[in-house]
């Protein structure tokens, strides 16, 4: 099991080294990875159909309660099938689609990484583990959207998608931590028993919900976070098919479904989901009919489909859960198919504008068949699986109580009419009619590689197969997935024929209305001004505005705080510390100075002190930089003396050598330093003097205060007592450094290394550009 989940990561890692072997035709072989995982999971079907769930546990960080716990139930199985099944097709397809691309190996590495993360996400039982995989899907999605990294639009879209889903991830983490601490467990399985505990405090429950929803909605592109998804279509089409329609965007739906038995069945939960999902599905479906770019149409219809999923979760009835499970499968099949077809059209003709396309059935008859199948399934024509999916949705809305059911059903019908239009526009329109003149000149392959046309045809064929024999997907996947979400078994087998009832009438009505729309409706383009303003006040425009402002703020902040002058840094640090510590010190600490413990001042102490004061005066008053440096080193050496008096020979030795080296360093760079500032105007002198005095006074006060506070000797006593017993050393300081806190020292020498590398690279490797100046 763990191997199946981690296979994607291992493959991605290996591709980093072996990538060059898979750049050419051999890349087809990589498709065997998802295919074999798919086959591996087929083996578990007997357990799932018996209604069991399988648990696999591996130790990871037991001390933190995070284990690699994986659980396979009906819902996970449905997603695993989608991920690996569609994944295998996309892997094969991409090998032909991106043939000869210079970064093909990278592409497969990202894709494997994504597949692994997605599998982990739907199989993990520990919510912290879910979070880790959740973030990994965002990261791999970022790489994949920005795959054409020489395109500025592509990079921008990748950043946007990452910013939105990343922000959502933060909220999700907050929600998970709250859930975990309230339920006192991080395992989803045991959380089912804590559902009352989670709902006990309305305030807390609401906070959990809000955070969870923001996380899930941002990932699943629900309004108002939907806008990153059309942008994500900048990715190569196989990616859009895989990540942004069939799998990743459904992660949010998966999460909500997963938490339905735990947090669901509450008015807050159901109302929010139904409202947000309902609005998203109608809003995005309406948008989709105005689009001309095939991918853009598909992006909006995907958002709408995700809205339907969330909406069904919000309804919360047993019918809705069956409808959801079926719709997830239906949508995965036809939407991935439509995307792959769009990819072929784009690949061969160089355009995705539906107004410029037509008659392609003459060139690619098999692709036309696949497009027809996908569009019919999307439309919900009888004998396709989409018909059953749509029926179930209407069943679910009709089974709601009272007048609400009419409103919801109307909403669902309207959405489906728009979606039908969108599906016909992408799956059928490019293939019918005559080939436009401009298009006829475009050179194209006479015969397509089967790697291109077979995957969408398979997807379309599966849609018909499931539609004709609905009990197969039902008994294998749908009913078990629905049970996982709903909690108890549901007795509602999928059927092709329900008799003449309202549902059938609605389905027929949807088909007719959609067809009429497709034949009659020609959307007009928006005027430039409307487009400008609608973008400006849309969530998309607002987010871009926030992004620009953030960058401006960062720029100004850096310009002021990090201007490259050492004196400004020192000044900033001193002022900041003085204000911060001073505030805390004077507001909370009862200031007392107890002189009774002080010993008499001995002569050598007085002499050292006198030397130090003289050296300080010299450093401040001198006009020569060399004198200032020497004076400062005198202060350093005198401090060494004080360490020696008070029994810290290790410290004294280190301070002494460091001081020596500092002086050497100063002398080396002496001639390159800017003009000595002591001559500068008196205002700066007074300012610096004031800040130094305040800072010094504050430190002295803190030291005096620290003297009278009772010190906790427990730790130092432990080290003193155990240095010889445990570490066989007598020098406690050194024993701490190399033994007790050896790992710290290890990190510290790494820090030193980084400092040395920094100096070296700044001065050595950067020397050439400065030479030119």
């Amino acid at each position, binding site marked *: 099991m763990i191997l199946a989940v981690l296979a994607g990561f291992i493959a991605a890692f290996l591709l980093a080294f072996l990538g060059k072997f898979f750049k050419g035709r051999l890349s087809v072989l990589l498709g065997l990875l998802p295919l074999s995982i798919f086959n591996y999971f087929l083996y578990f079907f007997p357990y799932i159909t018996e209604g069991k769930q399988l648990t696999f546990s591996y130790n990871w960080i037991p001390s933190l309660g995070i284990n690699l716990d994986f659980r396979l139930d009906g819902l996970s199985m449905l997603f695993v099938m989608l991920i690996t099944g569609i994944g295998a097709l996309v892997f094969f397809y991409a090998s032909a689609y991106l043939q000869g691309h210079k970064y093909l190996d990278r592409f497969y590495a990202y894709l494997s990484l994504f597949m692994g993360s997605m599998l982990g996400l739907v199989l993990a039982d520990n919510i912290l583990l879910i979070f880790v995989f959740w973030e990994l899907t965002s990261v791999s999605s970022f790489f994949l959207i920005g795959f054409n990294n020489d395109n500025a639009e592509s990079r921008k879209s990748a950043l946007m998608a990452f910013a939105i889903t990343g922000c959502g991830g933060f909220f999700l983490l907050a929600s998970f931590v709250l859930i975990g601490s309230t339920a006192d467990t991080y395992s989803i399985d045991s959380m089912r028993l804590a559902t009352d505990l989670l709902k006990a405090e309305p305030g807390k429950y609401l906070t959990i919900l809000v955070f969870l929803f923001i996380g899930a909605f941002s990932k699943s592109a629900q309004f108002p976070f939907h806008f990153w998804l059309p942008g994500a279509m900048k990715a190569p089409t196989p990616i859009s098919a895989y990540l942004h329609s069939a799998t990743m965007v459904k992660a949010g739906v998966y999460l909500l479904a997963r938490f339905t038995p735990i947090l669901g069945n509450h008015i807050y939960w159901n109302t929010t989901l139904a409202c947000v999902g309902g609005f998203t599905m109608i809003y995005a479906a309406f948008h989709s009919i105005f689009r001309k770019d095939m991918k853009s149409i598909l992006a909006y219809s995907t958002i709408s489909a995700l809205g339907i999923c969330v909406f069904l979760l919000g309804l919360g009835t047993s019918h809705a859960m069956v409808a959801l499970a079926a719709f997830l499968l239906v949508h995965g099949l036809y939407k991935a198919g439509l995307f792959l077809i769009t990819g072929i059209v784009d690949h061969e003709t160089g355009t995705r504008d539906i107004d410029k396309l037509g008659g392609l059935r003459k060139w690619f008859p098999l692709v036309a068949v696949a497009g027809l199948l996908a569009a019919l399934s999307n439309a919900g024509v009888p004998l396709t699986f989409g018909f059953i999916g749509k029926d179930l949705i209407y069943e679910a809305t009709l089974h709601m109580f009272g007048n609400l059911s009419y409103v919801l059903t109307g909403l669902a019908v309207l959405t489906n009419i728009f979606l039908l239009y969108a599906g016909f526009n992408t799956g059928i329109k490019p293939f019918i009619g005559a080939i436009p003149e401009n298009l006829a000149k475009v050179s194209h392959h006479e015969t397509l590689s089967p790697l291109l046309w077979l995957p969408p045809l398979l997807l379309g064929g599966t849609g018909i197969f499931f539609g004709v024999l609905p009990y197969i997907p039902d008994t294998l996947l749908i009913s078990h997935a629905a049970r996982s979400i709903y909690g108890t078994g549901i007795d509602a087998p999928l059927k092709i024929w329900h008799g003449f009832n309202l549902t059938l009438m609605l389905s027929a009505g949807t088909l007719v209305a959609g067809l009429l729309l497709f034949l009659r409706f020609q959307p007009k383009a928006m005027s430039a001004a409307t487009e400008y303003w609608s973008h400006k006040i849309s969530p998309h425009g607002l987010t871009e505005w926030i992004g620009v402002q953030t960058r401006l703020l960062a720029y100004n902040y850096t310009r002021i705080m990090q201007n490259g002058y050492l004196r400004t840094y020192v000044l900033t640090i001193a002022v900041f510390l003085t204000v911060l510590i001073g505030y805390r010190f004077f507001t909370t600490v009862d200031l007392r100075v107890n002189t009774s413990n002080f010993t008499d001042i001995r002569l050598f102490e007085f002499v050292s002190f006198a030397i130090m004061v003289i050296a300080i005066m010299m450093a401040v008053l001198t006009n020569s930089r060399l004198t200032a440096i020497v004076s400062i080193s005198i202060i350093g050496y005198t401090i060494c003396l004080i360490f020696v008096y008070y029994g810290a020979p290790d410290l004294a030795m280190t301070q002494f050598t460091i001081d020596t080296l500092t002086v050497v360093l100063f002398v080396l760079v002496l001639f390159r330093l800017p003009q000595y500032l002591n001559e500068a105007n008196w205002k700066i002198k007074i300012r610096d003097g004031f800040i130094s005095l305040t800072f010094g006074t504050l430190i002295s006060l803190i030291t005096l205060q620290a003297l009278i506070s009772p010190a906790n000797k427990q730790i130092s006593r432990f080290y003193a007592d155990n240095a010889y017993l445990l570490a066989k050393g007598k020098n406690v300081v050194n024993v701490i450094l190399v033994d007790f806190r050896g790992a710290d020292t290890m990190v510290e020498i790494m820090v*030193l290394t980084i400092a040395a590398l920094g100096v070296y690279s700044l001065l050595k490797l950067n020397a050439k550009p400065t030479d030119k100046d």
Partner: protein
Amino acid sequence: MQSTILKTATNYLLPLLLMFSIFILLRGHYESGGGFVGGLIASIAFVLHSFAYGLESTKVLLKFPPLRFIPVGLLISFSAGIMPMFLGKPFMTGLWAENKLPVLGLVGSALLFDIGVFIVVIGVTLTILFTISESVSSE
């Protein structure tokens, strides 16, 4: 800056300082000292040499560029850290030889770790100082 006095003194001081730095390194576990201070003292010895004879001759004396010392030291320290893991003990557990050796006394993985620190410190200090001094003199 070429001074005969400095050169002659360096001829005696360099080996003395290096021996002293090793002495400081080895006694660290029982008396004041340790790899960090030892490394600094050794660096000072080389800096002194570079003052007396010039940077180029110090580089010849060192045979390897100081940057090369750093990974060696890190590797030694790290291997001292993971050694106990081969015996099934946690990372950085102290291991000790059964019997005392002449002169050195009891030897353990902590000493190996300290030697690594010693080498890293020499590498870091000399890299920084030499790089800066070269970039200054090149202009």
